[in-house]
């Protein structure tokens, strides 16, 4: 190939002109090309061709061997999953757990979040109180439904037979629950209910998020004197629960009859505290003087709003969520007007107990898939010291409700 262009190509690509001509005519086999490429990448260092069909062959044989050794015969090893639904027996039985030593409860949140920390201690307490086989708190789902599904099946393989789950994706979690139920396990949806009307779990014990958001917005509107502009800070927009929170706040705003205007709903800022802090400080810088009230229905924005209002000296009334120490101290100082606290302790404690009753088949659900509100409380400066008592009373009341109305015990 006397063509100078060919020589240039050959020099650039680091292969001989002979190879180049074969590449161009398509007459070159692929592993010579691969060698040439490697030659290029390694700066001209020599490379060696190798036996190509061997490895895919080995992989194929390994897969085939695995498949063939694991082949099953029809009807030979059908798993015996699927507990027959226990018939709802008439009440009158005892809801006192007879023997929970064979019940191993796993409390699985969607991922690490301060909200779930009380589950850990409440679960440990329930294990002691009801003498359960084990109560495990596992937060390794990392906010991914697929990872959570894998984690749940792994826990089931490890012998856990009762599950209290906060589903990552409310629209998907019913599939997860149905899977667990088909393996004869007791399942509760704790902290959040599946989206839609159907619940495949035995029961759902969670905060009524729409109601809690409504209460929070109402408290904010009251603090604003019933008029002005309100901002709503919340979590992931593409989450069914966030949509409910937005509805709850919108309902409270509507009820003001036009006196209160929802200035903005800021979503997707509950990822971590830094994200929330940045979003809140941006908001206050841009529209600080227009805002009379801030209602936060997510944890991180609530903490961020409490901080930002204090440091910026804004006169906006803040209603937060949950009882982080920072929020509580802000309430006592007056920079945060109120907070709506939920009842995670009750969810874990009553959830673990009810799951044990269901798992031991001592009780059955009267109405499978029923949703029960675990309670939400507006905390202001006035009831700052006493709200925990109300929450404990609600937990006791929940337990009574389960024994009387929700469970049917033989």
């Amino acid at each position, binding site marked *: 190939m006397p063509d100078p*262009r060919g020589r240039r*190509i050959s020099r*650039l*690509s680091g292969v*001989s002109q002979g*190879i180049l001509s074969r590449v*161009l005519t*398509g007459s070159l086999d*692929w592993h*010579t*090309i*691969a*060698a*040439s*490429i490697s030659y*290029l*990448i*390694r700066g001209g260092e*020599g*490379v*060696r*061709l*190798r036996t*190509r069909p061997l*490895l*895919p062959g*080995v*992989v194929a044989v*390994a897969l085939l061997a695995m*498949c063939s050794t694991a*082949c*099953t015969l*029809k009807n030979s090893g059908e798993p015996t*999953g699927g507990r027959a639904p226990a018939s709802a027996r008439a009440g009158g039985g005892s809801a006192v757990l007879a023997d929970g030593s064979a019940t191993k409860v796993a409390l699985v949140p969607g991922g690490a979040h301060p909200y779930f920390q009380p589950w850990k201690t409440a679960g440990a307490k329930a294990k002691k109180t009801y003498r359960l086989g084990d109560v495990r708190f596992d*937060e*390794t789902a990392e906010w991914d439904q*697929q*990872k959570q*599904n*894998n984690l749940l*099946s*792994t826990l089931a*393989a*490890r*012998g856990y037979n009762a599950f209290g789950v906060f589903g990552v*994706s409310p*629209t*998907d979690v*019913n*599939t*997860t629950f149905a*899977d667990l139920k088909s*393996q004869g396990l007791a399942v509760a949806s704790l902290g959040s209910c599946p*989206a839609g009307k159907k619940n495949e779990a035995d029961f759902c014990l969670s905060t009524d998020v729409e109601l809690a958001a409504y209460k929070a917005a109402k408290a904010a509107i009251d603090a604003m004197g019933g008029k002005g502009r309100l901002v709503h800070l919340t979590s*992931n*927009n*593409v*989450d*069914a629960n966030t*949509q409910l929170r937005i509805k709850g706040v919108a309902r409270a705003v509507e009820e003001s009859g036009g006196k209160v205007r929802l200035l903005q709903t800021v979503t997707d800022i509950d990822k971590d505290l830094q994200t929330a802090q940045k979003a809140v400080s941006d908001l206050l810088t841009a529209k600080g003087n227009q805002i009379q009230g801030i209602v936060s229905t997510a944890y991180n924005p609530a903490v961020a709003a409490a901080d930002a209002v204090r440091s910026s000296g804004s006169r906006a009334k803040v209603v937060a969520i949950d009882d982080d120490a920072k929020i509580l101290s802000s309430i006592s100082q007056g920079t945060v007007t109120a907070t709506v606290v939920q009842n995670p302790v009750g969810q874990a404690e009553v959830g673990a107990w009810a799951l044990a009753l269901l798992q031991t088949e001592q009780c059955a659900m009267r109405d499978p898939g029923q949703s029960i509100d675990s309670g939400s409380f507006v905390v202001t400066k006035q009831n700052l010291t006493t709200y925990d008592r109300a929450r404990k009373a609600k937990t006791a009341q929940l337990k009574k409700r389960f024994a009387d109305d929700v469970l049917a015990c033989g």
Partner: protein
Amino acid sequence: MTAPVAPPGGDTRSDRPTPARPAHRLPFRADQRLGLLVLVVGLGALFGVVRPTFLDARLVLFPLFRDVSTLTVVALAQMVVLSVGHMNLAVGRMAAFGALFAGLGYDRLGLPLPLGLLLCLCAGAAIGALTGWIITRTGVSSFVVTLAMDFALLGLVSLLYSALTENAAFTTKPSGLAELRSYSLADICVGPVCGSPVIPQLAQFTVLALLGLGFLYGATRIGRELLLTGANPAAAELSGIPTGRRVVLAHTLSGLLAALAGFMAAVGTGTFRASIGDDFMLPSFLGSVLGGTLLTGGVVSVVGALLGTALVGVIRKGLELLGVGLESLNIYLGCVLLLALSADRVRTVVSHRKVVRST
């Protein structure tokens, strides 16, 4: 099925008309993918001995294989663009974008399962092609363009889900979806003999993708041209390879595979939602690079993507079974990966030295 390039050995004979049998061939055991296969099987056996429940077909192996199937397709989606020396940071959002169209097809148009999948693949391929076209037309690096695409799709997908659905997810399930999710080869029988309950039927898509890409890179001219484009774009261009079109092709294939992975992830969890693919980017690089694909382009390993993904999956599952908590899970995962790959490197170096010594 792969485009294997052995680790550096003796001198190349590539300038001869027919490559003669090299004098000092690297032994078969020096192949990186063989090392990965040994690691995957070895770690699987180790976990199986320490925790016999690791070998539980229904609760452990089936979900593990289903996960590996999906993430392998994600790794392949990344591998295809890596082959031309590019990267696709929008791989997760392209998955979400594809899944959005599948969900839309099932929910609004009432499409049957295969047609929805087709729509999903077309959407993925289209967005991939658009990305590739922008890269070739503007000459901006793939890193920047796909990053921009990631942001654009993040907004667009969320917006469309919020506008079209009540709960930010399409919950309509076409017939066959639940079966595709939970059936394994045990549900396919020839006479009285059925397949393994461990291999999910969802893996058929992964096998198809593996075979397709294996054929593309191993036996076709276009595959060779993709690799040459990645290895040295200038040389490829001067050799008469339409590098622009090859780049568009690579991104189109990447979008298509990402959409397939999005579909598989949606089938795996139950609904078509915006958060699909959120966690795809890291596994996409992990699987392909562990498997031997070069970040600089020009070298791919299709089987390696499967093995790399399987290695991470097995380690994670094993650690979960050992009851490792969140604080330590990722530390252990990192340590085990580092150890596994160091062992692999040591093995390669030892094999290489043996060859050198024998010369």
